[in-house]
């Protein structure tokens, strides 16, 4: 609780925390949605925002407000799946590479360096085309997770490398602690805050990529996400026809989401260690 109070002194943390809470409430409202998000023509088309339809309606006859609640919920779900799964890979790779060293380290770091160097975006696009027919929240999350761990595995590896040199490691090994227990009990507490702050960054990355893939038409348009909302507004020429409420809803929601996630991560990592901020800001 004390940590939380300290964090709240930073206006960036307080602000982004509140924005995220509002977005979460919006996502939770989807449970009470009076319409099925996959159905078309449930409300009159192309109405401006009013008291009946808070954010107006679109050319498909959907209520934009309720559509947005599903979009935020799905986008967040994808990013949480992607970020959690890629954290597991990153922790495993980083810890094995850092702790075992030698061949394992060289091999694993070669793989992660390759992922950092190759234009991943193109490869993700190609793979997304492959699984387009079976694309749902989970496949998309796992696809993104598969490519999102490289940078963070490097960060965790360098942390383990420094922990391994410290005296308590020697003491633990000499007093007969097994490798697994050493890593889980002694190293994890150091790694947890780092993992948490990379988790937030990775979530933002996943949402951004989801939007891009949706624009390229690689995500099932019946799955409401921030990306597919924006895409359907674009293909229905909402911009040219002056239906600003339809375009601006996903754009503004995603701007709020990205800025809030970024501020949260910056203020947490600054709180944990002011010196690491250079690396965090410089990174992905």
């Amino acid at each position, binding site marked *: 609780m004390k940590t939380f109070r300290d964090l709240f002194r930073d206006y960036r943390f307080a602000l982004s925390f509140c924005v995220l809470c509002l977005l979460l409430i919006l996502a939770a409202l989807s449970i009470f949605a009076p319409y099925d998000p996959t159905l078309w023509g449930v409300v009159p088309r192309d109405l401006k925002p009013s008291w009946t339809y808070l954010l107006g309606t679109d050319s498909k006859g959907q209520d934009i407000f309720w559509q947005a609640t599903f979009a935020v919920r799905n986008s967040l779900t994808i990013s949480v799946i992607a970020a959690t799964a890629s954290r597991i890979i990153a922790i495993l790779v980083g810890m094995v590479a850092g702790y075992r060293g030698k061949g394992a380290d060289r091999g694993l770091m070669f793989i992660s360096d390759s992922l950092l160097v*190759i234009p991943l975006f193109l490869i993700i696009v190609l793979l997304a*085309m*492959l699984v387009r027919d079976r694309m749902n929240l989970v496949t998309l999350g796992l696809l993104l997770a598969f490519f999102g761990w490289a940078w963070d595995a490097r960060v965790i590896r360098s942390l383990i490398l420094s922990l391994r040199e410290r005296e308590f490691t020697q003491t633990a090994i000499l007093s007969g602690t097994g490798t697994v227990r050493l890593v889980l009990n002694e190293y994890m507490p150091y790694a947890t805050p780092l993992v948490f702050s990379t988790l937030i960054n990775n979530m933002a990355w996943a949402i951004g990529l989801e939007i891009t893939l949706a624009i390229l038409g690689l995500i099932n348009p019946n799955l409401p996400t921030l990306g597919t909302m924006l895409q359907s507004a674009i293909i229905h020429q909402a911009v040219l026809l002056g239906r600003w409420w339809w375009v601006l809803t996903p754009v503004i929601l995603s701007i709020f989401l990205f800025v809030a996630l*970024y501020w949260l991560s910056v203020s947490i990592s600054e709180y944990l260690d002011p010196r690491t901020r*250079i690396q965090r800001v410089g990174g992905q």
Partner: protein
Amino acid sequence: MTFIRRYLIPRLIQYVLVTFLGITAVFFIPRFLPNDPIVRTITAIQSRGATLDPATIDETVTNLKRMYGLEGSWLEQYGNFWLRLFRADFGVSFFQFPTPVSKLIGIALPWTAGLLLTTTFLNWTLGNIIGGLAGYYSRNRWSRALDAVAMVIRPLPYYIFAFALLLLLAYWVRWFPVSGGTAIGRKVAFNWPFIKDVLWHSFLPALSLTILGGAVNFQTMKLIVQNVNAENYVQYAKLGGINESRIVSKYVIRNAILPQITNLALALGQIFSGALITEIVFSYPGLGTLLYNAIVTGDYNLIMGITTISIVAITTAILVVDLLYPFWDPRIRYM
């Protein structure tokens, strides 16, 4: 000699391996794609009104397979792919048949390269100069204001930022053209009206790439300069009465610019994928739009050609920066 044995050779091996793996992946992934290009081409011919009898269809299929390099087993195709790659021959495009892929890329590449190189160096230079100044005068009000702006712009993905800029400056206030590389129907010519038109159309994509990339460089440089400023030797130099401009140019900037050179190499890799998206937003006639069309139509050869070229370009750029790094940083000696 130890430099060559300990550093140069492993680094070169890594470069070759990564490039090889990347290109191999690019060869195999499109072959899993659900679109069959041959069927697609034949349908396209038929939809133009031609009636084909089964014998003609068979013959067309064989001809198309030969032209697209789809003959034989995957292993043979893979071998041929590498052989042709060394001659910079990527085969013919499927959807703009029979234009060779290398020609399509040749047309698109100058647009992308021009936009990319200009904006990358522009945002790197501007970000570092402004960031350096803001870091040095970090107590000033304008420095804090710039920092706040960067905190909002920096996390936005390329797509959202470019789109927001497009809505604001092209649709709402109508200062700039909405899409394209030149006005519709204008012929390529090297005279002032043409160049003016190109610059006019590329202004918005360039602006979005410059601001977004510049915000990243600004933040990093500002923090580095702030940290260097707090170092003992800078404080000592100040107390020793050394001329302020000399401290900035000789001590602060030199130490701060080194990590930024590495970031330039990484930015080349990352901005490439960003620039492709930006091109799609503004329908800019570069590699990004070409790639988009290639993906939509399932054009194997074109996808492979574009991806191969970008992989080679990016890995090479990073290799060059890595190898040049010791010349900038006297602390690094690969002994």
